[in-house]
């Protein structure tokens, strides 16, 4: 397997030899992965290769049985997804985890709503601050919203994805994990999500994204990490590989 030259900066995220077993299944058999600021790493592999398990360990859903995860060079051990989020690792879930009946701003601030004092005494939700933050955040993603009070349930899949990403951005997520973000979307919406990923990259954040779609992977990634049955099958710079090579890595042989 050819080693890939890493960018010279210190990795934002450094996963070293993580191992995970579920009962009799070895889901991950010692996998390593680096992610640098402003880098998009695609995670590919057949079903059951261990992609979701790897992202879940990074995001604090499961602890690793062995190996370590470093964030900014510091070893970290998250016991909950909340802890990972506080450290700046955010997962964009496939089902998006938005409250459909609330506005973009209310979703961005869900669980940590800003308050103000009405008449100087009565604590009330600061809806204006939420709407303002929503507007600014979404325009950083190049999406201009004119109906800030509309519930997100009225938006399309890609738009909702943007809201979820906007929330991660607002809270300064530096590592963004996306598990098949385009799987449930139509083609035009998929393109928009790819634009979102490029946007996050341009802001210097690190993105790990899982996809089955080589077209998407080649369109936005800097590097691709291929897993096969819980092990690293190979790692390539996108500029130096081809669809054929990646497919071979995925299926083995």
């Amino acid at each position, binding site marked *: 397997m050819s080693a890939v030259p890493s960018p010279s900066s210190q990795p934002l995220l450094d996963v070293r030899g993580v191992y995970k077993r579920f009962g009799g299944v070895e889901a991950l058999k010692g996998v390593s992965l680096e992610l640098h600021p402003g880098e998009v790493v695609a995670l590919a592999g057949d079903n059951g290769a261990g992609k979701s398990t790897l992202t879940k360990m990074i995001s604090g859903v499961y602890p690793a049985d062995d190996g370590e995860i470093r964030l900014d060079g510091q070893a970290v051990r998250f016991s909950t*997804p*909340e802890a990972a*989020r506080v450290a700046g690792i955010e997962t964009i*879930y496939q*089902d*998006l*985890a*938005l*409250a*459909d*009946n*609330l506005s973009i701003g*209310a*979703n961005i601030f*869900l*669980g*940590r*709503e800003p*308050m103000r004092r*009405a008449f100087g005494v*009565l*604590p*009330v*939700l600061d809806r204006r601050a939420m709407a303002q933050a929503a507007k600014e955040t*979404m325009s950083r*993603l*190049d*999406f*201009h*919203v*004119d*109906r800030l009070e*509309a519930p997100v*349930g*009225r*938006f*399309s899949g*890609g*738009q909702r994805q*943007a809201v979820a990403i906007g929330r991660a951005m607002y809270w300064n997520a530096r590592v963004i994990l996306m598990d098949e973000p385009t799987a449930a979307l139509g083609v035009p919406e998929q393109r*928009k999500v790819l*634009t979102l990923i490029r946007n996050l990259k341009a802001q210097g954040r690190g993105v790990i994204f899982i996809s089955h779609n080589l077209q998407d992977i080649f369109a936005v990634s800097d590097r691709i990490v291929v897993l096969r049955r819980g092990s690293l099958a190979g790692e390539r710079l996108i500029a130096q590989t081809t669809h054929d090579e990646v497919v071979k890595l995925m299926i083995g042989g």
Partner: protein
Amino acid sequence: MSAPSTSLLRANRHSKAPHPWLVRLAALRAWLFLALLLVTFEVWARASYGVSFVLSSYNAQSIAVFAVAPLLLALGETFVIIAGGIDLSVGFVMGLSAVLAAHATNAADSSLPPLPAMLVGIAAGLAVALVPGAINGWLISKLKVPPFIGTLGMFGVARGTAFLLAKGTTVPVTNDWFAALGNGRLLGIPVVVLVTAVFVLFMHYLLGQSRFGQHTYAVGASEQAALRAGIGVGRLTRRLYLLSALCAGLGGVLYTARFTAGAAQAGEPLLLDSIAAVVIGGASLFGGSGTILGTVAGSLVIAVIQYGLVFIDVEPFWQFVAVGVVIIISVLVDQTQRKLGGER
């Protein structure tokens, strides 16, 4: 503003978003319905009896007093229903509170002056409601019992306990302050109506302006979303059922005040009315939507139907039919609106 092509959130909003007026109309539908009812009864009253239905302050006060108890239950139920739950125990929690408030007032009357004795009675009535409320919340959040089943069980427990405490009869109260709370007026307005109005304002604030209210909406839309946002869903659920029980407790206390007697069956007919008020007020039984002002309108709709039918001399049993029909229409309107609103 950038070009439309990069503007995701504008791109295909035309396909899903309903006309803004439709959204506003839906929020107001209970109030519109109330106006329609009032006009109907007004026309009927004038045509048949040559009197006004609406412009009678006696009628207005009777309707308001009539609406108080179901509205109090409905206020708590609004929160629970928005969160995607249901509380079937409220009617008998109200009865339990009514009986205990009466007993406690009587016990305190023997050793305390009337005003503190009444306060003891009120405190006891409210406090006892918290017990079934806490058990409901615990069953639902910790033991994962479906709300329908858990609160149905508590319906039975509260009912039995209330009848046992009342020894199968009503518990009269002779405290003058209590009687004044239930039947007195302030500036010409019945005190129970004033108390309820203040409570409505508080609940409106709580639902619309507090984190608690915001999280209630979020849980009703998606429990997963709420959990992932770090909201303590279990704690929120326990608080919601406590709040609902507290509303029922207040209903029970005011019942005892109004009739100067506590009765186990005080809230028996009110469970259906209170849920109906919430649904007519625009809340969805699927959770995620509803407002306090809508619930107020829904309660008034029911009170006007019930009082109005008596006023125009229709046999009282038609009330049940009329309220039932209104519930069904409200649910149908809600479903249609959901379709038009493009919600998934």
